[in-house]
């Protein structure tokens, strides 16, 4: 691999990593920080992409569609938390597995009912549709640069919110001991509803943002789900910084494995994860 | 060294230059102590002095940053933490640490079974061995929980859980008992019971007692060590230590009243 190809692949790896962070960010919040095992996270990613497509078809504006989709996702998040997740906090974690798997079924069915099974695509918004030349042959689409910046922005905001603000402290405290937080006069239920909904919204936003770069197909959420969990866990539960580093790591590993050891590339992120967890059983940045 | 302690007693447990650092914090700094068989060794000191840390190392829960621990003359600081218990070093915890979902009896049975063996017996029923139950019941009765033996541990009150905690240690029939604030949270009567119990036990075991209940410590200890901020301040007989002005300043306070 010559230097220029190496650099290109480095960019690819980082780009993929950032996208992974975006998709995993909601999961970091809901699962890592709040401790709710939400397997339907991938489904919300899928729903986000479908919503984006649907509203782009109807409004013609990507930005508008993104906003509407985010709001719908937020509402779904609130409803799901209020009606379902809330009942399970006191129960075994595994009940959350069962519940959210049930939700995956429902979301999949609804997707199929509402939008059919054909692969769909969203065009890159016109304002961002140009590209920067990279090598003689390769170009780099501006939209992907935009996405990378967006991911970094979300990472920074999340990091500050969780680690530096009072709100972040409350959320973390809630994961540790809900009852005690309530004893300090804080409406933990409300707080959790909101944060859960934000997590769901982040998943959907990731779907919206990814829509123009990928194909919108049934089951797209399930493929990405496991990778998201890999990211959160390698990073160390509850650590935003960890998730960010892990996402970049996974992105780079996957990219370089694809070109350097193609026979093993599918296994590579799992090998890396196993390796990291054997050395650091609590992930990279565990507290 | 305290002259009252007759030198013909065996040294059961010994620490040599034991250190534990948490990052920059020296939770324990160069502690060298000897714990004698059939003696009760009290350890007191202000909060955060490193008493629990010391116990945690004596029972293998933490590994020392430096220094060594000798059990009957053999260095044991490097062995696995469960092996400490196998060598007869049992401990109770400052923060209640029991099996909340099991009955009190079952809690103790787990403890008894360790030394009765047969733990990898896949076929033999756990309920067939009456001896196990008997030893466990005996331990419960010693701490005054006999009447609660079939109660689920999470359903008994906090104080009772503290009693159970001690019963479990006794049930392992250790040689060394490391007790971390066994009386904390117990009522007066229960405390008295434990004090009586310890009075009986202290001639049978090597006991290390960490406790803030001064009456109890003064009453029970053969030897008393005072620690402050990870440092060893003094060791000696109760009377000598109690009157040590440094101890008064750092720990007991000047007043006559003892809370």
């Amino acid at each position, binding site marked *: 691999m010559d230097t220029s190809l190496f650099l290109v692949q480095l960019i690819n790896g980082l780009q993929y990593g950032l996208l992974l962070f975006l998709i995993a960010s909601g999961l970091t919040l809901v699962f890592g920080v709040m401790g709710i095992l939400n397997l339907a996270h991938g489904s919300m990613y899928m729903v986000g992409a479908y919503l984006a497509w649907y509203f782009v078809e109807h409004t013609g504006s990507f930005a508008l569609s993104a906003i509407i989709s985010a709001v719908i996702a937020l509402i779904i998040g609130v409803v799901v938390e209020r009606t379902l997740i809330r009942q399970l906090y006191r129960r075994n974690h595994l009940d959350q597995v069962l519940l959210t798997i049930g939700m995956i079924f429902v979301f999949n069915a609804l997707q199929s009912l509402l939008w059919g099974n054909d692969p769909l695509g969203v065009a890159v918004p016109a304002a961002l549709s140009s590209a920067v030349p990279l090598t003689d042959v390769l170009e780099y689409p501006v939209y992907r640069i935009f996405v990378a910046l967006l991911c970094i922005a979300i990472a920074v905001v999340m990091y500050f919110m969780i680690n530096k603000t009072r709100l972040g402290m409350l959320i973390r405290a809630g994961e540790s*001991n809900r*009852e005690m937080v309530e004893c300090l006069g804080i409406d933990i239920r409300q707080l959790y509803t909101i944060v859960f909904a934000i997590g769901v919204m982040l998943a959907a936003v990731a779907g919206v943002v990814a829509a123009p770069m990928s194909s919108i197909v049934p089951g797209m959420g399930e493929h990405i789900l496991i990778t998201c969990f890999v990211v959160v866990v390698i990073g160390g539960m509850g650590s935003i910084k960890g998730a960010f580093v892990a996402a970049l790591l996974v992105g780079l590993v996957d990219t370089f494995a694809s070109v350097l050891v193609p026979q093993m590339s599918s296994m590579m992120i799992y090998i890396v994860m196993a390796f990291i967890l054997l050395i650091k059983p609590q992930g990279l940045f565990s507290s | 060294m305290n002259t009252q302690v007759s030198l013909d007693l065996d040294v059961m447990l010994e620490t040599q230059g034991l250190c534990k650092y948490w990052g920059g914090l020296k939770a324990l700094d160069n502690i060298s102590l000897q714990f004698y068989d059939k003696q009760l060794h009290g350890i007191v000191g202000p*909060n*955060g002095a490193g008493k629990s840390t010391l116990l945690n190392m004596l029972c293998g829960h933490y590994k020392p940053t430096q220094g060594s621990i000798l059990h009957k003359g053999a260095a044991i600081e490097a062995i696995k933490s469960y092996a400490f218990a196998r060598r007869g070093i049992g401990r109770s915890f400052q923060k209640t640490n029991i099996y909340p979902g099991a009955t009190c009896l079952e809690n103790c049975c787990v403890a008894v079974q360790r030394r009765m063996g047969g733990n990898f017996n896949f076929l033999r029923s756990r309920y067939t061995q009456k001896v196990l139950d008997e030893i466990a019941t005996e331990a419960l009765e010693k701490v005054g929980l006999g009447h609660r033996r079939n109660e689920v541990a999470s359903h008994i009150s906090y104080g009772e859980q503290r009693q159970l905690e001690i019963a479990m240690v006794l049930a392992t029939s250790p040689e060394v008992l490391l007790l971390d604030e066994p009386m904390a949270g117990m009522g007066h009567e229960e405390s008295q019971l434990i004090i009586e119990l310890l009075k009986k036990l202290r001639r049978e075991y090597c006991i290390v007692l960490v406790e803030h209940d001064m009456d109890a410590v003064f009453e029970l200890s053969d030897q008393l060590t005072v620690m402050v901020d990870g440092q060893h301040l003094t060791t000696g007989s109760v009377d000598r230590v109690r009157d040590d002005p440094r101890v008064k300043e750092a720990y007991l*306070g000047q007043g006559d009243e003892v*809370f």
Partner: protein
Amino acid sequence: MTKLLEVKGLHTYYDESHILHGVSFAIEPGQAVSLMGRNGMGKTTTLKSILGLVPPRSGHVIFQGEEISHLPTWQRMRKDIAYVPEGRGMFHNLTVREHLEMAARPNQKGEQNWTVERVLDTFPRLQERLTNLGTQLSGGEQQMLAIGRALVTNPDLLILDEATEGLAPLIRKEIWDVVRSIKESGISTLIVDKNIQVLKDLCDQHIVLVKGQVVFSAGSSQLMQSLDEVESYLGV
């Protein structure tokens, strides 16, 4: 003058087991009240019933003249009640400073007498451990933090459940001093503790529970008179 807290006929159950059998008592503003009893008599359960952590099957909790039995726990605490639970309730993922900062707030009247700084001054030990996580503290340090965390909410009523458990004599004295000064500043306290020697001087009113029933409830002078009776309830 309305009572600060009034508890009427609490009956509380854990599943099927009946723990509190009609507990009633009242706290006047500014009073320090002790709640005593042997292990397992229902002291903690009483506190939890007041706070709504274990909802009573029947009975009333009236705070500053207002029925709060139907409110969720957090709203009751917002009425400026603070609670130091038995077992301390540390957060394993928050540092000492964060424990205090997350809880700090002015009370309903807008006063903020207790700030994070004041707590740290009161407990210098915590000052040294600011970046430790809650569960990395020694037992006593945790206890100080739990009290500090309750104080920064600037309560009208401070509820302490075995707050001096596991504290060194010096610190324990310090805590009682703090409670005394809190009391002097007009904050009421409800104290569960085993140490009758201290409580009899510190508190204005004493309540003794036996098997979920109030068997003794009176002021300090009466307590001195019937000290033997009370001590027998407490098994001293």
